[in-house]
């Protein structure tokens, strides 16, 4: 079996959660790698939507930005951004939305806006982008985020995107039509919401990771699911497909841009 990294396992774990034919609203970075890994392995019929308006895109290399030309070149169609958000996302036509963030709390709420007070932040983050409406309207969301006590926090500095709000069904009263976070994929394993409280609990560990490690990385007292599992390590096919994808991407991005004369 090939050696693998935790980053690779995060991507593989996320890819495995996707199914053939599912409609994904993809973000840049790990989610984009995960969705394309799924497409290149067990889910060839997955429909990838990037918020730039590309629908059914099948990039050969990973985009650096959400709107690289590769995405348009390989899409079934490209629609204006207002339509992607109104006619597809808000209309409830997206099965899975991927989200990242700077902070997540125990109910899967996310902060990507500021560290510190909004009016005088110590760190100004990029902001909401498409996240609040992805969080509200995708039938389910997957959050991908490496764990440290600074990112998995007891209280967000700013709530950018709704997870389960205060838990215990409070999301259902909010107007959010999607189901909320189904999983938080992090670098030791996967957290999923408990049935009633909707608090995130450790439900799966990567091979080689421990519950102690997980507790140390999370800034609140982490619950552990009764029927936790250990995830199979990446298969040779998963690892080789992912590495080939990254290699193609590096190669493509190393070409200098030639402006027309």
């Amino acid at each position, binding site marked *: 079996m090939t050696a693998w990294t935790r980053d690779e396992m995060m991507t593989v774990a996320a890819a495995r959660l996707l199914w053939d034919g599912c409609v994904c609203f993809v973000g840049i970075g790990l989610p984009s790698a995960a969705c394309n890994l799924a497409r290149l392995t067990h889910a060839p019929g997955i429909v990838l939507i990037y918020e730039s308006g590309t629908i059914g895109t099948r990039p050969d290399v990973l985009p650096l*930005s*959400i709107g690289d*030309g590769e995405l348009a070149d390989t899409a079934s169609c490209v629609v204006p951004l207002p339509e992607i958000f109104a006619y597809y996302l808000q209309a409830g036509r997206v099965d899975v939305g991927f989200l990242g963030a700077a902070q997540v709390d125990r109910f899967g709420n996310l902060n990507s806006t500021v560290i510190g007070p909004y009016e005088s932040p110590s760190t100004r983050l990029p902001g909401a982008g*498409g996240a609040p409406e992805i969080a509200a309207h995708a039938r389910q969301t997957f959050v991908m985020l490496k764990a440290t006590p600074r990112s998995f926090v007891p209280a967000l500095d700013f709530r950018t995107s709704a997870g389960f709000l205060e838990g215990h069904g409070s999301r259902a009263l909010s*107007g959010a039509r999607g189901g909320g976070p189904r999983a938080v994929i992090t670098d030791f394993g996967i957290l999923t919401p408990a049935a009633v409280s909707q608090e995130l609990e450790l439900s799966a560990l990567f091979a080689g990771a421990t519950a102690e490690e997980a507790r140390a990385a999370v800034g609140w007292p982490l619950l552990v699911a009764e029927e936790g599992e250990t995830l199979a390590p990446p298969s040779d096919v998963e690892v080789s497909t992912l590495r080939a994808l990254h290699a193609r991407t590096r190669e493509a991005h190393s070409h200098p841009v030639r402006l027309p004369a």
Partner: protein
Amino acid sequence: MQLLSLREAIAEYVTDGACVALEGFTHLIPFAAGHEIIRQGRRDLHLVRMTPDLVYDQMIGMGCARRLTFSWGGNPGVGSLHRLREAVERGRPKPLELDEHTHAGMAAAYCAGAARLPFGMLRGYIGTDLVAANPRIRSVECPFTGERIAAVPALNPDVTVLHAQRADRQGNVALHGIVGAQREAGLAARALVVTVEEIVDTLPPAMNSIVLPHWVVSAVAHCPGGAYPAYAQGCYGRDNSFYQRWDAISRDRTGFQAWMERHVLGTADHREFLASLQGAA
């Protein structure tokens, strides 16, 4: 429609204090126009854009802006915009007022602007602290169901600047590829300036393609490479390595200033800007 040089177009249509949208969602970002605004020393601009990226980082860092309406301000796939951050976190070189939204909210606001409705609506801003942070996010009650729906004021910039692949001599502008909310931003504005890769006698026939008809376009400026380091589908690709290099260039104010002086203030136009980068590479 007027056919102008970029210098003339910016001089005529972008004035101090104006509300200006240089739209472009990763693709077709009007970089050349932003640089010309910096060269002409515009001040107190209210900048509008869903995804303020490097060119807004540059304009903010050079002190052109007093206010920013936006929904995501980062270097895509790379990280922070350091000049934007310094303006917000430390008020340098000037304080920057934020009017912060989500992508869906900005899109609704542009659509409302293009339709000359006073507000746009969406099922949005649900459970987010943005509602408390921004008094310009409100709600309306559906007169049929009683539901409350989020509302944002229409965006109607004084001028929108776009970049496109081509225009014909009459001023009809055609763009293709990823188009973001550019068309809506263009139609929402009081004036619309478009830089283009090429000017042709006749646009390629394409029945349902994206065209801004000549009578909604205020000025066209011929500006090859005008989206660089962003890209123009079918003309040239995105210079992802420049986006990565920008992180280091812009990280501290001194290095940023030196780079801007050499490559933007120190060049007369976009052609010279591009040439200066060749030298630097």
